[in-house]
């Protein structure tokens, strides 16, 4: 059986926290640049230009792209034939977050109790979603999530009779209501199906798929394309100040659901859609 020591996990998580907050993946930078090319309005072009300049400065001067360096959200696939040595896996990930957010000069944005609101001062605890998978590897994906956009997310428990139209309307309604608050251009993560909590998790997971990749399910890809087009005709635009680039992508993930239900979750993400994956 293959063994992996938690020291190795801590070291990698630390680096991933810093990397994710200083530089966006190529799919995101490309999508923002395409948005700029497609805009005709001066203000929309100026704002997208500032976002490109911002990413350049972030990379060169090691200043986080956005001051909201997020809550550290993880999707972790644990190979069932892997043996983890050292401390508990959850403690190791949190230790990596602690080191990454401290050593990387990232913002500590987590309060211990949602009502008492005392800052934990090291950005822990992280939010970790585990899956047990075949194999002997550990796959870690970090997606630091800012809350300006998170706050504009929605969950709709639709009826089966609402069907495809109901789903499309729900996504459009969520984006319209978010308006300028979620820092457009957005990436819109959508979960359809499952139950109350899995649906929301699917929406978050959808945000980690590259923005230039469509769903592999043809009927879902059609919805992604149609809704993205409709969103970009709402006129909200970069910064919410008018334009064609309201969203860079609509990513949908689905799961089986109950005969009585059609849950739809819309997880908003701003243009600082960060995700870094490593396999150990």
């Amino acid at each position: 059986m293959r063994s992996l020591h938690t020291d190795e996990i801590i070291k990698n998580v630390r680096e991933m926290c810093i990397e994710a907050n200083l530089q966006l993946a190529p799919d995101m930078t490309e999508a923002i640049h395409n948005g700029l090319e497609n805009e005709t309005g001066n203000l929309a072009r100026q704002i997208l230009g500032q976002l490109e300049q911002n990413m350049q400065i972030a990379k060169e001067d090691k200043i986080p792209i956005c001051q909201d360096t997020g809550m550290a959200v993880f999707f972790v696939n644990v190979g069932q034939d892997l043996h983890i040595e050292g401390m508990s896996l959850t403690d190791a990930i949190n230790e990596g977050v602690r080191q990454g957010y401290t050593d990387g000069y990232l913002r500590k944005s987590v309060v211990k109790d949602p009502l008492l609101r005392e800052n934990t001062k090291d950005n822990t605890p992280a939010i970790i979603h585990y899956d047990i998978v075949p194999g002997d590897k550990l796959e870690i994906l970090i997606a630091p999530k800012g809350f300006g956009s998170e706050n504009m997310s929605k969950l709709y428990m639709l009826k089966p009779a609402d069907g495809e139209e109901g789903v499309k309307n729900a996504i459009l309604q969520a984006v319209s209501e978010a308006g300028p608050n979620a820092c457009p251009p957005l990436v819109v993560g959508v979960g359809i199906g499952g139950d109350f909590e899995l649906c929301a998790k699917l929406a978050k997971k959808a945000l980690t798929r590259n923005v230039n990749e469509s769903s592999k399910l043809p009927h879902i890809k059609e919805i992604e394309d149609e809704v993205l087009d409709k969103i970009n005709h709402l006129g909200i635009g970069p910064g919410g100040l008018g334009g064609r680039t309201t969203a860079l992508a609509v990513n949908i993930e689905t799961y089986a659901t109950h005969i009585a239900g059609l849950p739809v979750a819309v997880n908003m993400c701003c243009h600082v859609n960060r995700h870094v994956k490593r396999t150990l």
Partner: protein
Amino acid sequence: MDIKITTPLSKEELIKLHSGDYVYISGTIYSARDAAHKRMYETMEKGEKLPFDIKDNVIYYLGPTPAREGQVIGSAGPTTASRMDKYTPRLLDSGLSGMIGKGKRSKEVIDAIVRNKCVYFAAVGGAGALLSKCIKKSEVIAYDDLGTEAIRKMEVEDFPVIVVIDSKGNNLYETAVEQFLAKEVEK
């Protein structure tokens, strides 16, 4: 129109700014976000003195990342303004002249902006590295225990913002989208 202004901002200067103006701010501004607003509000409720004189001043809704050695401040972009809506009318009625943030405001805030002839500016959300370059000095002056949410006194130079809600209540978030859609229809 591109305009340069220097804080503090008098009412005479504020009424000259119009929704949609691109403005470069220089001078002193103060950072305060959720927790600092709550504390300031409670201080005023008790009839005590605020940690800085808000009269004619500008508050920036900001919680920056920590500065590296040799940097004035870390990433420093605006946070969503609507979370401060509960506390804002009282600050505007007490002399605050402007706010920098991003996103929509409540009717109560817009009414208070018009009543007091103030201005709500937006900076570009998610451009924190770029905006940090316009901040030349930064010093925590109150609520140090709040970490990133402490109140900072900052000197800015040509800090780029857009007038979203002007002293007459014109709201760029509504008009810009309407104008854009009307233009697209023409095409």
